[in-house]
């Protein structure tokens, strides 16, 4: 296998003025094209880890770092945030916190114009990003603040996609949205997985939606990585996840319960469809 596009080696970090390490020795490899879900309870270091991957830490935050983070060949201690941003796009939980422009169009092309790309290429990348995030053409002149929460987050994602970064990190992209907005953003993630061969890293509590998309799941707990595995293996250990304050989707907890009752011995279902199949086999098989 090729070298990982992200290599984290024994990473420790503590913010200035704090005695406690937020990250307590993290090792993690992520390969080009992987879709990675990062889960874990609040305040366990997920966002801090994400900021280490785009170089905001240690470049823009005072604190103490040990270990190494190599992103797309760049050691984050030796490269600026701007250089790392060429390879890594970042989407925040609150889309409004990252808007800079008065119209959707300006927002999406802002960084491209900064890079002085040719006009045709800017146009082409914008159309592609808008199409992938399902933002209609007639939204281009609208001010971002007039959009719904889900639309705002899709514009934020489009403006990151337009940069065509190798790596996209999304920090709880649905946490501030209502259910319709959450569904819209998950659909965009699904499209990204299907049509854009980037490395996608999502921090997310909505496991029901992320599990079927992920190639790899990472459990971060109290500043350490406790488990890294493909989703089916990751969610096989439901009790382990519950002990670490992660609540897997109902259908996985159900499979675990059925296993304890001696009724099921197969792989843990990822989706409602798979769970339906599981129940039909159990009920039909024995009777």
């Amino acid at each position, binding site marked *: 296998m090729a070298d990982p596009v992200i290599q984290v080696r024994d990473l420790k970090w503590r913010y200035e003025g704090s005695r406690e390490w937020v990250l307590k020795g993290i090792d993690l490899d992520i390969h080009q094209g992987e879709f990675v879900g990062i889960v874990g*309870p*609040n*305040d366990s270091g997920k966002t801090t880890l994400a900021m280490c991957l785009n170089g905001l830490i240690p470049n823009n935050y005072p604190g103490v770092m040990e270990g190494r983070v190599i992103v797309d060949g760049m050691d984050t201690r030796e490269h600026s945030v701007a250089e790392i941003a060429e390879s890594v796009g970042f989407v925040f939980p609150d889309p409004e916190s990252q808007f800079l422009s008065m119209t959707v169009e300006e927002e999406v092309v802002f960084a491209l114009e900064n890079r002085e790309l040719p006009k045709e290429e800017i146009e082409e990348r914008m159309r592609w990003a808008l199409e992938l995030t399902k933002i209609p053409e007639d939204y281009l002149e609208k001010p971002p603040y007039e959009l719904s*929460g889900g639309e705002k987050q899709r514009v934020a994602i489009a403006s990151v996609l337009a940069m065509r970064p190798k790596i996209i990190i999304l920090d709880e992209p649905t*946490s501030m949205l*209502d*259910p*319709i907005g959450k569904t819209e953003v998950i659909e965009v993630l699904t499209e990204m997985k299907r049509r854009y061969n980037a490395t996608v890293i999502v921090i997310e*509590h909505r496991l*029901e939606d992320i599990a079927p998309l992920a190639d790899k799941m990472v459990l971060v707990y109290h500043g350490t990585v406790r488990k890294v595995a493909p989703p089916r293996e990751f969610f096989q250990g439901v009790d382990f996840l519950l002990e670490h*304050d*992660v*609540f897997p*989707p*109902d*259908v996985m*907890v*159900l499979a675990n*319960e*059925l296993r304890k*009752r001696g*009724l099921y011995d197969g792989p843990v279902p990822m989706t*409602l469809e798979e*769970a*339906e199949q599981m*129940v*039909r086999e*159990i*009920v039909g*098989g*024995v*009777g």
Partner: protein
Amino acid sequence: MVEAIRVENVTYIYPDGTVGLRDASLRVEEGEFLAFIGQNGSGKTTLSKNIAGLLKPTKGDVWVFGRNTKEVPMSELATMVGYIFQNPDHQLFNQTVYDEIAYGPRNLKLPEEEVEERVREAMEIVGLDESYRDEHPFFLSKGLRQRVAIASILAMRPKVIIVDEPTTGQDFRQSIDIMDFLTMLNREHGHTIIIITHDMPIVAKYAERTVAMAGGRIILDGPTRWVFSQSEILAQANIKPPQVTRLAQRLTDLDFPPDVLSVEEMACLIEQRARGGA
């Protein structure tokens, strides 16, 4: 049974002309635990604020313990219904935790000994250690700020407590802690609890009764189990029941009921069918 709240044919129109609530009617008995569900803009917050007297009906009336919210002074209403905002920072504004919690009781012109007692009681119920008394609320963690916000409402000893999005931004463990705490207030202290939420698994686990809203109207109102079984009406309002409920609804041809609320319940139903004991 004591009637806590009666909403009678209430329509609410915001100053900009937006219709927030259309002809809504609702009766709540003292001691109930309810959830208001629906998309943003469905009317659940408008309804809640009308119940708390923060908004007054454009048409119709809201009665709280038999008193019309249009006629009761706000200071008195605050002793009957407390409203806890989603973002605790929207309601915290004092310099110390003590002053924050004491603010309401002091407004009631209670003697300082009684204020002191209420603050101590409220801090104890929400599990805030005495040592936080003189801390500035803004230097506390979000979880602790939320506790301060709840304590400041409890110090008014309102019989009805409305909590807007108690679990948003919280992880699994924090959500369970908050909801167990509200359940304790409901069962042990007799508070009527209304939660406004998008979190359907939380509704299934904690609320006895659910009111679903869409377009400013109440579209379903009944036991949570029954509300989640109304899959077609919920789908029109873009409300997804919990995953385990949806699973059972896909299996009605095998005689699974459409109103399963928990994984445990579903596992038992599968076991009965698999072992042929049914």
